[in-house]
């Protein structure tokens, strides 16, 4: 890549974030660095990942409202987590976390356990228990 080819596309990096650094060659073939405001391929890839997460959130929400899953799964998706990541944040075994996705099990959870989840999601226990549709 030549220095003048460093991509200057739109991205999620705004003024306040500054720009990203690239290595590229100058007109004499010597390596140098230059700044980039963003690159199309990267933004598309990132957008794709974000869309996938949005879909997962919407799906979890739908199932939660149909009483097929608990708010724990919904908030896990909102926080971009996967079950193993959530398990390690709350310090509960994975199989138990997955079990807590069941609405019937969720209802019986102790205040202490609920607090662990609420802390991991950065919300209150109230918010965890009563998700607005």
């Amino acid at each position, binding site marked *: 890549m030549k220095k003048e080819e460093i991509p200057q596309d739109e991205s999620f990096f705004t003024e306040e974030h500054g720009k990203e650094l690239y290595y590229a060659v100058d007109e004499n073939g010597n*390596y140098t660095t230059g700044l980039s405001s963003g690159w199309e391929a990267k933004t598309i890839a990132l957008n*794709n*990942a974000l869309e996938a997460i949005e879909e997962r959130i919407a799906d979890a929400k739908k199932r939660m409202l149909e009483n097929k899953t608990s708010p724990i799964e919904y908030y896990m998706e909102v926080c971009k987590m996967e079950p193993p990541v959530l398990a390690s944040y709350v310090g509960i075994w994975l199989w138990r976390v997955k079990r807590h996705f069941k609405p019937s099990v969720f209802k019986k959870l102790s205040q202490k356990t609920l607090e662990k989840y609420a802390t991991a999601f950065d919300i209150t226990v109230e918010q965890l228990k009563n998700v607005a549709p």
Partner: protein
Amino acid sequence: MKIDFEHKQSAHCENGVVSNLMKFNGHQVSEPMVFGIGSGLLFCYIPFIKINYAPLITYRAMAGFIFNRFAKRVGIKIKREKFKDPKKAKERLDENLKHNNPVGLQVGVYNLVYFPDEYRFHFNAHNLVVYGKEDDTYLISDPVMQHVTTLTAKELEKVRYAKGPFAPNGHMYYPISFPETLELETAIRKGIKHTCREMLAPVPIVGAKGVKTVAKLIRKWPKKHGVKKTNHYLGQIVRMQEEIGTGGGGFRYIYAAFLQEASGILSNEELAVLSKEMTQIGDQWRDFALNASRIYKNRSVQEDAYNKVADELEAIGNREANFFNKLKRAI
């Protein structure tokens, strides 16, 4: 207090931290030098670790490895500490700052407030330098950011104690002893040999062979997993090519810059020629990334499109195998 620390932006976090810490301690070592000597370049496909619901693909050595190898090869010593107790972690950090010693920290990205929201995933192998503290706010030099920034004590604790794969557990590190002069020549040779060995490893998920394996899989994925999942996996391949700041094939460009610099230090013309070829390989990675990303943008569901990018990737794999064989002989 504020330590007189120069923030220099880099393309990759770990190299940048090492390069900046070295400079603070009076040794000028460029980012590509750290990357090359530390054998940072890699390709590895790990299907049994899933990140964001897609197999893990990495283009660089695991966090910590680059600095460890670099240190060993140039003869510096690093101190690394992890803490179970966040309070203790904070105390040790403050102590170091008081003694005018900037330190590197491993952190999770998800709660790094100065990153664009869109970049904040549960990724725990990011690195930054703390170079001071004013009241309850830490002064942060994150090498992939253009400017220095700050984090409150609470924010810093959160990222130091991020959970999930590769959890940092408050990991803090800094160099503690240096040789009179850095022995770059032998270090460069060792670094290059190591990279060649890894890139030519006779293992189907590592190095050039790994690249070809993934190319093969791309052909199979649409049938096996359907278009949606395939596109998601492809997206992951493109996204992992870049840490913030390293454009498509970015690590290849850093490596090319390293070979160019190494060619001067070792007075080895061959390395300069190979540097040019590595740049071309980087360009090929870039084209691949762009074409792969366009597949899922256009949602043009021709099977041909997948085969095309798979062809491109296969060509890259073959070329890298050839390249590292040449590099091995040149050193």
